[in-house]
């Protein structure tokens, strides 16, 4: 598998570096090993000092770990980026149209494009959202679309993330780190900047405030310092110049939301929430949630507060709905998808189930409601026992699973124990939507890398790392 994977940096065997990597590979070739080692140690120490950490579940000491950062950048040529960007905008526009549709007239269900029960009986579908008109018709203000490159060099969407996509802070900090470690690379290359992300996001969030509010107050709602992505919450709030609040800081009075300040209650217009739907309002969703604000839905329904991303987007990034996204693009936009999906078998369909059961050792099987790389079977890497266990699970509840071919994800040279070696990567660009504004994507995104040889699991919560992503302007 690794032998047939597309190498981001080098042309097929005995070839030199790809055009976009030419200057970089020349630079790399003359770097003394100890200089690079020293730079890597410097990055490590700086990330620690600044506290750019992530809580990793299942680790003994629990608290904090660095997300490993690799100093070899992932470089994209401009023409590839332009096409990717167009495909992402198209996809997110269709997804927003889809979400609006299923909470209003449900045309796509009436047209029979997607079986109605897959949407309406989906655990992420929120009946509470039916008929609510959100500002600008935008549900996913921030979308993290996971992109992989297959062995033919084609980009494909692996997964959509429309609820609380994370990782942008690492994209921003990685760029700062690279500029600090290797300023000479930035004078030799024209790399599209990324640091305007917080400004664009803030502008978009303000654009979706309830109509008539002259100077909207935006806040970022976090579950608190013990949440795994807290660093990002604090970072973004600070970069945008908005308050970082927890549920306990807010209250609802007269269908409006207020925060408790040293000067008394202050009105809140837009909530950029980094908490799942389930925890947002104990009066409506999970009653045991200590993280939310009682009565928030009342204010939301009254249109007195905007929530970004909107409640109920989870149905659209559900793995059981993912296979229909190309159809959504055709249905709502009348266009052919610019970026393809990964071929997906839906095990709720008898034919697909039969095929998958017969080919388990070759395939990747995912739980429809899994996340973060957990609950997944990677056929080629699994033991016979694991495969059998999964087979039983699948047969018991086939509708809970989808399967995809094991992709040879593209690789990028990465520092491993023995030196530079190819490691599988993916890309998560962040797609921003606002009212009366073009959909904006900051060039590049977060490149995640599986640090173990041959591993396809890039998620930070399972020990993956990240790289800086460059879109070259020349």
């Amino acid at each position, binding site marked *: 598998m690794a032998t047939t994977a597309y190498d981001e940096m080098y042309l097929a065997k005995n070839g030199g570096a790809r055009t976009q990597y030419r200057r970089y590979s020349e630079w790399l070739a003359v770097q003394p090993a100890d200089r690079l080692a020293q730079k890597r140690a410097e990055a490590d120490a700086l990330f*620690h*000092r*600044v*506290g750019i950490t992530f809580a990793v579940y299942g680790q003994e000491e629990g608290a904090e770990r660095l997300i490993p950062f690799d100093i070899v950048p992932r470089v994209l040529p401009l023409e590839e980026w332009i096409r990717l960007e167009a495909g992402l905008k198209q996809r997110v526009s269709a997804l927003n149209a889809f979400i609006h549709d299923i909470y209003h007239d449900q045309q796509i269900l009436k047209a029979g494009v997607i079986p109605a029960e897959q949407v309406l009986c989906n655990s992420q579908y929120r009946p509470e959202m039916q008929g609510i008109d959100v500002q600008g018709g935008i549900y996913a203000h921030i979308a993290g679309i996971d992109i992989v490159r297959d062995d033919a060099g084609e980009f494909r969407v692996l997964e959509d993330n429309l609820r609380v996509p994370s990782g942008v802070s690492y994209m921003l900090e990685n760029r700062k780190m690279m500029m600090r470690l290797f300023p000479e690379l930035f004078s030799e290359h024209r790399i599209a900047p990324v640091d305007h992300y917080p400004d664009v996001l803030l502008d978009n969030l303000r654009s979706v405030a309830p109509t008539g509010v002259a100077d909207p107050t935006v806040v970022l709602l976090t579950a*608190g*310092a013990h949440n795994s992505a807290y660093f990002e919450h*604090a*970072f973004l*709030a*600070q970069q945008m110049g908005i*308050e*970082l*609040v*927890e549920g*306990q*800081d807010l209250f609802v009075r007269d269908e409006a939301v207020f*925060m*408790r*300040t*040293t*000067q*008394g209650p202050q009105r809140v217009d837009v909530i950029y929430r980094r908490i799942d739907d389930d925890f947002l309002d104990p009066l409506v969703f999970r009653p045991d949630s200590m993280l939310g604000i009682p009565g928030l839905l009342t204010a939301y329904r009254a249109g007195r507060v905007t929530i970004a991303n909107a409640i109920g987007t989870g149905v659209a990034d559900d793995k059981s709905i993912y296979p229909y996204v190309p159809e959504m693009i055709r249905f709502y936009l009348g266009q052919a998808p610019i970026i393809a999906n990964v071929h997906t078998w839906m095990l709720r369909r008898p034919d697909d189930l039969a095929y998958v059961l017969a080919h388990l050792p070759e395939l990747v099987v995912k739980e429809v409601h899994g996340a973060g790389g957990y609950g997944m079977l990677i056929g080629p890497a699994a033991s016979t026992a694991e495969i059998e266990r999964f087979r039983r699970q699948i047969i018991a509840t086939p509708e809970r699973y989808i399967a995809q071919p094991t992709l040879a994800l593209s690789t990028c040279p990465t520092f491993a124990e023995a030196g530079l070696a190819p490691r599988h990567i993916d890309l998560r660009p962040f797609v921003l939507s606002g009212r009366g504004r073009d959909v904006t994507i900051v060039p590049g995104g977060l490149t995640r890398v599986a640090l173990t040889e041959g591993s396809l699991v890039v998620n930070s919560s399972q020990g993956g790392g990240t790289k800086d992503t460059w879109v070259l302007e020349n």
Partner: protein
Amino acid sequence: MLSRTADHLYWMSRYIERAESLARLVDAHYRMSLLPHSGDTLAESLQATMTALHITEAYGAKHAALEPRAVFEFVSLDRDYSGSILSCLRAARENARAVRGSLTSELWVTLNSTWLDARVLAVRRSPNVDIGQFVEWVKERSHLTRGVTIGTMLRDEAFHFTRIGTFLERADSTARILTAHQTDLEPGADAGAVPDPYQWSVLLRALSAFEVYRRVYRDVITPFKVAQLLILRDDMPRSLLRCCKEVYSNLKSVANEHSAETERRAGEMHALLHFTRMEEITAQGVPQFLESFLARLRDLGDRVAHDFLVPPAEA
């Protein structure tokens, strides 16, 4: 700003100040322990200080006897004791972490590095721990933190609540340390007798006032003047007067609809110290004065929490 944020900043500052205060105390006593013939005075001073700071019980739970070396290590590095310097540095950092968006990145990095380095130092075991070096390092880190705070923070609410926490804590520690020596500060306590040099050097060093005393008074050390320096002198950065002045001034900057009474009480404390003469305090009795002062300070802290922060009952 959010009440919860102000609360974290306030407590972050109190813990930083507490760590510094403890470091000075340990440093002063440690230096004394290196001098010959200081044994009795040292033991007495340690005992009195530990009582004033409520350390005795926690220490007693782990150690049978009052042994200076063990006390220094306990107060500096004990992981389980919530009042140790180590614990204070951790608490300061955890409070800062909760509101790092309100701090300049330089301040956050300073606090975070202090904690990370302290944790490394704390792993060493006696006799490998050099207490003298440790507290010296803590003092240096305090200077750095103070410099970064004053040098980089915008003079906004975050800054003011940070200062309120700092000066309430400083007033509290100073008053308590004075309490530990209160019998010696009574007039006539050493009438005619030669003042014990060790005794005063400990007190003055703990409040970074040893050299200052000399500059101000150029005189033999007398209890009256020591008390005056540490309670009433406006030009002494650690005096009770100075602390009250700062608390009052910062409270005025953050006034809200409900804080008028709290502000008045802070102003009153400041004014009383500003216009009192040392003779009046000694007439009242230094211990009585300190007790009353600490009570008013406690009341002020409660009111600040209620008016601006997260009141203890709801927290």
